[in-house]
């Protein structure tokens, strides 16, 4: 007696096989991510480590290992030490400013008011513009002769007369004076990161149940105490994430410094990423460049661990 063919064993049903096996499907779906990470992050990272231990140059990229020489050379270089210090100043100062300003902006955007949509759009705009174009815009703003900022200051009488608050000279030379150059670079970076931080803070603030703040109000807490005891502790995890993301973006950023000052005047705004670029690419010393860039790795690794921890904490609360 021959049984009729079982519908599930027909060729048409077999074609659905891979999609029905969860193990195989999982591997298939995760493969693009694994390939991407291995090719675009893993391989360059391994290559950087190999270069940093070699004497490779752009003219001769062969790998002859020379041990830790490149790291020793970097540490004994005063420009490297300055760049290292500048990187921390640049990152921490700009991110501290960003956190304060983004909280203020987020608080303002939480309240309903006329034209809120427009304000929100304007706040987000710097984030959508290509970073290099935005920075070139700032380069013009900081122009040593035609700076519109200087023009406004002169117009307000704060600059260019004998009794002016900022001095009798006609221009401030934003990118030409050491302290001011660092301040200018930090300002542009704040402008750049602020939208992201504001959006993250806004998400954090609006995730606090209204009941909680009302309960605190009825419980007799002043606005100041509500902020200190309820809002800040409850938004701390997400604010930390905004801060740490900002740290990563700033710590590794090359464009702002490269476009505005090229590390000048005399390396006063040099940071690790720009110094890596100048040493490794423009001067052709691949090995030195790789070694300098690897100094960023421990800091970024620690930040990454914190981000992951914070992300978990926000899930729990």
């Amino acid at each position: 007696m021959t049984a009729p063919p079982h519908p599930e064993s027909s060729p048409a049903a077999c074609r659905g096989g891979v999609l029905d096996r969860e193990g195989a499907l999982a591997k298939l779906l995760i493969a693009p991510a694994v390939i991407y990470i291995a090719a675009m992050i893993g391989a360059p990272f391994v290559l950087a480590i190999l270069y940093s231990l070699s004497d490779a140059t752009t003219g001769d990229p062969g790998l002859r290992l020379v041990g830790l020489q490149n790291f020793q050379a970097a540490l004994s270089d005063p420009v490297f030490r300055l760049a290292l210090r500048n990187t921390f100043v640049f990152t921490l100062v700009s991110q501290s400013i960003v956190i304060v300003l983004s909280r203020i902006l987020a608080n303002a955007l939480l309240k309903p008011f006329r034209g809120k949509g427009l304000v929100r759009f304007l706040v987000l705009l710097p984030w959508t513009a290509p970073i290099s174009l935005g920075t070139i815009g700032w380069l013009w703003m900081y122009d040593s002769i035609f700076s519109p900022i200087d023009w406004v200051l002169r117009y307000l009488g704060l600059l260019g007369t004998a009794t002016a608050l900022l001095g009798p000279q006609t221009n401030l030379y934003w990118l030409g004076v050491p302290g001011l150059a660092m301040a200018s670079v930090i300002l542009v970076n704040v402008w750049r990161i602020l939208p992201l931080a504001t959006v993250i803070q806004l998400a954090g603030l609006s995730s606090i149940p209204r009941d909680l703040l009302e309960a605190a109000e009825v419980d007799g807490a002043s606005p100041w105490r509500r902020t200190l005891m309820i809002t800040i502790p409850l938004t701390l995890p997400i604010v930390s994430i905004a801060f740490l993301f900002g740290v990563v973006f700033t710590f590794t950023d090359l464009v702002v410094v490269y476009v505005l000052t090229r590390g000048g005047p005399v390396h006063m705004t040099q940071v690790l990423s720009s110094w890596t670029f100048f040493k490794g690419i423009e001067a052709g010393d691949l090995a030195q460049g790789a070694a300098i860039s690897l100094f960023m790795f421990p800091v970024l690794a620690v930040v990454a661990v914190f981000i992951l921890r914070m992300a978990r904490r926000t899930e729990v609360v």
Partner: protein
Amino acid sequence: MGRVEIRGMSKLFGNVRAVDHVDLATNEGEFLVLLGPSGCGKTTLLRMIAGIEEPSGGDLLIDGRVVTHLPPRMRDIAMVFQSYALYPHMTVYKNIAFPLRARGVKKEAVRKKVEWAAEMFKIGRLLDRKPRELSGGERQRVALARAMVREPSVFLLDEPLSNLDALLRTSAREELRQFQRRVGVTTIYVTHDQIEAMGLGDRIVVMSQGKIRQIGTPMEIYQWPADTFVATFVGSPPMNLLEQEDVLLGFRPETFLPTDAVEGSEGVVTYPFEVTYLEYLGAERLVYGNVGEKSHARHVVSRLPGSLTLPLEAGKTYPFAVARRDLRQFDRKSGLARSGDAA
């Protein structure tokens, strides 16, 4: 201490009148329940008393003092939210201590008060836990403790039992009532649950569409509803309403019984009751059916006690009756109760 007086209070949300010229005054130490369907404005009214909603008009007095535009912290009130609104990042101890710390009470005094409150609500062993580690019933106790710890003159509760399961709700209701009697704080309690309202309230305020429909003791509300809204909102199943000429005739399902079971010194009104459907609920039977002519609203329910074992069948007609003293009359147009009760 603790007399709340509301004068002509309104709240507009856009064009919607959430609360419409409400006048209301509590007695001292009273348990007042605001009862109404969702969206009737009862919670908005409570939030205005608390001070977390700004009224569009009218005045609020607490102990004779106008507090309409004062922030909540200057009103000497405490509130328990429907969600309990416990601070998730603080331990139970810190949650209860919060209102005291906000008032600058000294640490040692805070500790004593928190322990006193924890003792009162039997949550002493939970003081080190975070709210997420508590059950629903425990959270509700913590919220009550936090509200009571600074001994306010008015206590506001927004559906505090609605997140508890049915069994817990019954015991929590009993505890809440006993506790309120003990401390004697004027309490305003919002609920949409008529059983809660009847069981807890010294007086009930029935609200609908932003207006007060009736204020009275549970018995007054149930026996003498002021209009057809109250008559049909309170009571389950609701009061039967029969159209009769220019009036609506109302009677409670438990007063509509087989003729033999009705006693009435003032006489009875009998109806042929055409049974359509029966529900056996253990302690009682609900009998659905029609009376009178087809052209009128004539669907009525009878609620028979379990002790009445008379056999009834769907599709048959039986003689039923209501005692005259149990009949209520309402105006057909306005729905308002008419004085004089007999049909």
